[in-house]
């Protein structure tokens, strides 16, 4: 046991305790791309929102597409992690922290886009809800304000959901590190000792948090969908939008999680921890979500086509066979035609093909967000008000930079925190690990000596 536990510590704490020059080089390169986004944003702030491609009638373009996309990606973590925790799925152990970190970072990036979209971000406080007599934003019936509460609740809840199980690992680093690391991680560990009382409280808290965070996660993307569905815009004003958005968010989130895990596996040499079975299980989930996504888009499209409402049909035609058709069919390919065979046939469901499918889904889901927003705004009820939208270099740069920003945040996270929960991984090796939820303390006393390793 001693050697095994030490080896696990060595493997999982190595990225935290040792830094190679390649890491700094990668941080600089990715950081430069992310910095370009701030340059482009600064250019927009200096010159005004007119440097972006959005204008009448398409007031929502790349920025809101990115907002919806990143909020969707955020569903990877906390939701999936919470479901797997409640289901006591043993294979979740190396996956949960990777997933929860995606949630926090994707929410941080997603929440930036309304600020970028504002054009004058220094007036963002006008959006914040506080009791006031100035009439700045008194309309609590607006879905945009619901976003404020939902996203902030989810961000704070997800951060705490990520933080709590990190405390024992901070303590582990504290006990193994020396010098400034020992001081910093000692402070982060909050005096964690590892008494039975602390473990019991932590597990109880994680269980309650998992129960609470699932409905919050569902509500967040439902509310993002309400930003669209509450508007009388063709193909937006639909009751299917909330579950459609939630399903799409879990879909894209799973894909992002698979990509992140593949990168971590390769770069941090975690092949023994992130194994084929983990990718296979996530691949199966991705397959289910791909089928569900297709079901939703088919139901939505069929209803519009059969209803034959002129305004909705204009948007329908623009996406099926009009100017947006290439993007639409690429989306169908990426979200359905590519992943389904790759993930259905067991012989094809390798790590590499799961990653290819996930990459396709990330591209496809970004296109889906774009195709929900732009064609509908470009083809509203009155044909004389129809228009087009083309992104400028500013929007494209900011979009690319946010992807680099996500990679940068993830790299720094993996450098500062064990990206696989060390104590949860060790618990998975316990002979009675899968039964622990069912064993009462009274029974445990008699079981323990027989079940010892």
């Amino acid at each position, binding site marked *: 046991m001693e050697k*095994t536990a030490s080896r696990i510590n060595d493997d999982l704490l190595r990225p935290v305790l040792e830094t190679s020059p390649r890491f700094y080089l990668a941080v600089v390169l990715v950081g430069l791309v992310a910095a370009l986004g701030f340059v482009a944003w600064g250019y927009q702030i200096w010159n005004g929102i007119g440097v972006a491609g959005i204008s009448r009638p398409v007031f929502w373009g790349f920025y809101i597409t990115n907002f919806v996309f990143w909020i969707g990606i955020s569903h990877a973590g906390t939701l999936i992690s919470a479901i797997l925790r409640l289901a006591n799925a043993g294979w979740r152990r190396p996956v949960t922290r990777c997933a929860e970190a995606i949630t926090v970072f994707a929410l941080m990036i997603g929440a930036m886009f309304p600020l970028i979209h504002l054009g004058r971000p220094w007036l963002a406080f006008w959006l914040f809800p506080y009791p006031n007599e100035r009439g700045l934003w008194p309309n609590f019936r607006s879905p945009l304000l619901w976003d404020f509460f939902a996203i902030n609740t989810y961000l704070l809840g997800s951060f705490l959901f990520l933080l709590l199980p990190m405390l024992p690992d901070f303590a582990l680093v504290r006990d193994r590190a020396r010098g400034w690391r020992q001081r910093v991680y000692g402070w982060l560990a909050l005096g964690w000792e590892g008494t039975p009382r602390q473990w019991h409280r932590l597990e109880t808290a994680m269980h309650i948090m998992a129960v609470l965070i699932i409905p919050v996660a569902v*509500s967040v993307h439902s509310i993002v969908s309400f930003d669209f569905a509450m508007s009388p815009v063709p193909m937006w004003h639909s009751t299917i939008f909330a579950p459609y958005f939630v399903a799409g968010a879990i879909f894209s989130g799973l894909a992002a999680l698979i990509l992140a895990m593949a990168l971590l596996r390769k770069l941090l040499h975690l092949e023994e921890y992130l194994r084929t079975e983990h990718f296979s299980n996530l691949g199966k989930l991705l397959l289910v979500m791909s089928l569900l996504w297709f079901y939703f888009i088919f139901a939505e499209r069929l209803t519009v086509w059969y209803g034959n409402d002129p305004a909705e049909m204009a948007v329908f035609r623009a996406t099926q066979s009009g100017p947006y058709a290439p993007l639409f069919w690429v989306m169908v390919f990426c979200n359905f035609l590519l992943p389904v065979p790759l993930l259905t046939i067991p012989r094809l469901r390798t790590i590499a093909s799961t990653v290819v499918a996930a990459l396709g889904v990330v591209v496809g889901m970004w296109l889906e967000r774009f195709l929900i927003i732009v064609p509908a705004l470009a083809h509203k009820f009155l044909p004389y008000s129809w228009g087009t939208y083309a992104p400028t270099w500013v929007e494209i740069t900011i979009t690319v930079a946010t992807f680099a920003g996500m990679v940068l945040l993830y790299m720094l996270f993996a450098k500062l925190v064990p990206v696989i929960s060390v104590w949860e991984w060790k618990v998975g090796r316990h002979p009675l690990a899968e039964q622990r939820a069912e064993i009462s303390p009274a029974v445990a006393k008699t079981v323990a000596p027989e079940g010892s390793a």
Partner: protein
Amino acid sequence: MNAIYGVYAEPASAQRAVEGLRAAGLPETSLLVLSAEPWGEYEFGAYRRHSRMPWLAACGGFLGGVVGFALVAGTQQSWPLRTGGMPIVTLWSAGIITYEMTMLGAILATVLTLFVSSRLWPARQPRLTDPALADGFIVVGASEPPDHLRAEIERRLREAGSEGIKTVPGSAC
């Protein structure tokens, strides 16, 4: 903290040590068990007292919901603005914010309860750390052991299969 403890590679040994210390007459309040991973499936690692955390989470949720609704209703009535033919305070839209604030209240109450009941807040230094903990060993011993029991405690810890007996004198950690 004044302590005497042994480190155990196997949970079964740790279990024997805990039973031995109890048999020696060590009070439960002095029993010391530390590990870098939870051993809830063993008696020595199980914490048998019920937690009020779920109830406190529910109370936090209720409080959050009340605050959320008060914020919505109070703000809208302080500057009445009628939009879309809707009432000034409508349960449909106020319900969403009330719901989010309910969940936020429950989450914060859970975390606060964890921090306080686990003595993580206010933050302090751990009473005892041992490098062996990080390597998967389990620490079992006695904190502030009575002088007349020290020899017996040491014997019991050794008999249970300890990899080594250590003492922490005085207030050192």
